[in-house]
């Protein structure tokens, strides 16, 4: 029997960073807000305390903080000619679950995208001509510009307390920062973190080659900080347990450390954990949402009516929620019509390993999740792509985050996978190797998309999300090009052996790459090629807002979180100042 609950103003699906920020703003504005979180409530104390949190087996290998894939995995295939099968163990990407969402286990790498990224289709055509791109590429403009988002980037970074060095303040290039960045209105809230040895070696080599190294913007803070919400954070101590872990030091910016204390103190907000939302309910016209239906941990079913529904879950789950609810048309790759699930993109990760002599002691275990040094000289459109046959690029950096040995024991190519030779190589190279990350962009294409699986179901009996993805030729060419640049930097560092590993096809779910899954409910100015308008409002059901990296029409050369924070505040602005005062379409279709 379904229990119908009292109607509220706003129901939010997912209480991660997006959900927490939206809920805080709308509750403070006087609206009654309910946040539905499928996972557990959890806090720095008592859940995230050391030494128990420094357990590589539990958190890295067994993935303790991740979405329960025994109940809710995705299915996957490289191409629509194949049969998708369940991803039976998480590896390639790791969506989180529980209060605070995936940002509890993030690395804190806090980059802005560049002005060019938001107008990618237009600017690519302007600079390289209309026939430059491969025919399968479906990149498009975002419908919002960098200049419009700048104040919201600023607000999000000051919420987090991000540690970094500006490279461009209101058009003036700043020494020590990234000269390629689009103008920011002011300096970072806190100065950069200390530089580790890998970063220092990289900085010297990159400078010698004429590149522009700068400190990685980090939301593992360089010093104590009180954010504009009045919440206090501590300085990071470089314990080397960031990604896949929660932080016990109050030093990593997460919902728990930057906003939840304020949100949970507001009686206009009610947090409900253990609530698995099944669908957004629509009225008979199918153009208006009436609320959501969810099942709690004891198996009881509830209907929560609301005037406004906001999906704020992980990108893949936002897409699935719309598909399960029948909101807007699913994308069809054969006809190229439909929008939900369209333009799924990822991140094209390559790497370079630089092996040094025994007298160069690296101490890889001393690191935060974002204490590296990098260059943007080969990211985005910061270099001329004429004649290269691809768009996009990668940041290249010594951004090593840890030395946890089950996962981190680099050995040169050709080393046996086991036995005496393997062991000798592990012992020899563990403390004498620098790894670069080459964090590459990802174009959207006609053939990469998300829809509902026809066969496999979750623990509640609903179809799983089906992912059809392989690396586009554009991105494989990009990966090969930037990896060669990375190898040159490794050689300039004086490494004895430098091994580049450009990302190759086919995409595999069996190796961790990144949790930067984007697209599927993309934003834009045309309802035929986007699910939400420039304010992240559904074209089809205007009292539904879909906020997440699912809105990205394609993915850029940087980690997506900062841009998601900016989009969140941008959408809140429109919600508070326009939509809630006069509910209706913010953009006419």
């Amino acid at each position, binding site marked *: 029997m379904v229990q119908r609950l009292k109607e509220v103003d706003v129901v939010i699906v997912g209480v991660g960073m997006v959900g927490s920020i939206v809920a805080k703003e709308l509750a403070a504005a006087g609206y009654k807000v309910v946040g539905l979180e499928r996972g557990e409530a959890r806090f720095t104390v*008592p859940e995230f305390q050391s030494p128990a949190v420094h357990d590589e087996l539990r958190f890295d290998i067994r993935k303790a903080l991740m979405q329960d894939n025994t109940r809710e995995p995705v299915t996957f295939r*490289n191409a629509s000619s194949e049969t998708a099968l369940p991803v039976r163990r998480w590896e390639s990407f790791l969506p989180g679950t529980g209060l605070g969402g995936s940002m509890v286990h993030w690395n804190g790498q806090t980059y802005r995208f560049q002005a060019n990224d938001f107008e990618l289709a237009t600017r690519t055509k302007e600079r390289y001509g209309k026939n430059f791109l491969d025919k399968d590429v479906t990149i498009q403009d975002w419908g919002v510009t960098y200049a419009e988002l700048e104040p919201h980037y600023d607000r999000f970074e000051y919420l987090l307390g991000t540690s970094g060095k500006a490279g461009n303040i209101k058009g003036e290039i700043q020494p020590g920062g990234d000269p390629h960045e689009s103008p920011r209105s002011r300096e970072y809230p806190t100065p950069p973190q200390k530089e580790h040895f890998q970063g220092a070696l990289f900085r010297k080599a990159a400078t010698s080659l004429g590149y522009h190294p700068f400190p990685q913007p980090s939301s593992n803070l360089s010093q104590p900080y009180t954010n504009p919400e009045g919440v206090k954070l501590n300085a990071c101590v470089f314990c080397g347990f960031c990604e896949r872990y929660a932080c016990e030091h109050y030093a990593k910016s997460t919902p728990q450390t930057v906003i939840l204390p304020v949100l949970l103190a507001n009686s206009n907000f009610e947090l409900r954990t253990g609530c698995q939302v099944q669908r957004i309910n629509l009225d008979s016209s199918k153009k208006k949402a009436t609320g959501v239906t969810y099942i709690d941990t004891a198996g009881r079913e509830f209907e929560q009516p609301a005037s406004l529904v906001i999906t704020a879950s992980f990108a893949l789950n936002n897409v699935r929620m719309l598909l399960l609810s029948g909101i807007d048309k699913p994308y069809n790759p054969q006809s190229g019509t439909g929008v939900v699930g369209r333009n799924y993109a990822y991140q094209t990760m390559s790497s370079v390993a630089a092996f040094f002599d025994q007298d160069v002691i690296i101490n890889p275990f*001393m690191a935060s999740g974002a204490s590296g040094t990098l260059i943007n000289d080969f990211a985005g459109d910061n270099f001329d792509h004429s004649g290269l046959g691809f768009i996009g690029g990668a940041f290249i950096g010594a951004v090593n985050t840890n030395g946890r040995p089950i996962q981190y024991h680099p050995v040169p190519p050709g080393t046996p996978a*086991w036995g005496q030779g393997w*062991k000798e190589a592990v012992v020899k190279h563990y403390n004498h190797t620098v790894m670069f990350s080459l964090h590459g962009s990802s174009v959207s294409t006609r053939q990469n998309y998300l829809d509902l699986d026809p066969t*496999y179901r979750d623990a509640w009996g609903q179809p799983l999300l089906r992912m059809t993805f392989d690396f586009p030729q554009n991105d494989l060419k990009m990966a090969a090009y930037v990896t060669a640049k990375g190898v040159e930097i490794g050689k300039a560092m004086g490494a004895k052996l430098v091994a580049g590993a450009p990302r190759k096809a086919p995409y595999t779910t069996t190796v961790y790459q990144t949790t930067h899954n984007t697209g599927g409910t993309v934003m834009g100015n045309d309802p035929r090629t986007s699910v939400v308008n420039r304010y992240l409002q559904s074209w089809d059901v205007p009292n539904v807002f879909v906020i997440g990296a699912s809105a990205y029409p394609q993915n850029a050369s940087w980690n997506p979180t900062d841009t998601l924070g900016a989009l969140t505040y941008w959408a809140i602005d429109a919600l508070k100042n326009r939509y809630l005062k006069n509910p209706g379409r913010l953009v006419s279709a």
Partner: protein
Amino acid sequence: MDKFSRRKFVATIGAATVAPASALLKAAPAEAVAPQQMAQRGSATLPAKPLYLFFNLAEAAFIESACERLIPADESGPGALGAGVPNYLDKQLGGAWGSGERLYRSGPWQSGSPSQGYQLPFTPAELFHVALRAVNRNFESQGAAFGTLSAEAQDAYLKTLEAGGVDLDGVPSAVFFDMLLRMSIEGFFSDPVYGGNRDMVAWRMIGFPGAYADYYEAIDRHGEKFAREPMSIGEDALRHVHIDPNIPASL
């Protein structure tokens, strides 16, 4: 409230054991770690033979010999056997991981492409039992247990498993080998509370300080060796590692 609890935690637990990293960097060079000494202490407190709860005798015999070939003892230190890796495997396979923790187990079952990953209906526990039965039957029929072969012959057999193509009663040998190797590396390098990496021998071998957490003063002292005893998440103030009493990782 959180902040108070944190301070209290540091005052009661942290202060007694945590020395500033800067002092440690100035401390003696790497020899101060004295791995042999620590290993001896380990062997004095932990008997060499684990109590196997998951593996039967024949299975345990194969696992012990095979793991030691995957990670052999050498001058850098003990191998899988000395580090307790078979004990780790036994406890993992006999527990939640063995019975399918974090493994989506709904059909229909069909084989996929390599990029689709593991698609077999076996739990890890089922997979090991089935594969090990087939392996040991093979050696029984030859009249010589795997453990009695020369190191070279053992390696050659493991390579045939690794290369695939051997059907172990429905388990592709490459899948069994891959799981055995992955879990051996886990057992070698994971925290000793899980029954492997005995006395943190693997961490000492590479210089990983384990659960130790504060490098604020050390991180910008580039190129200096960080000579510190590694730390387990199960250590008390006397540096004894406490195993969960409900998991008899060693007896």
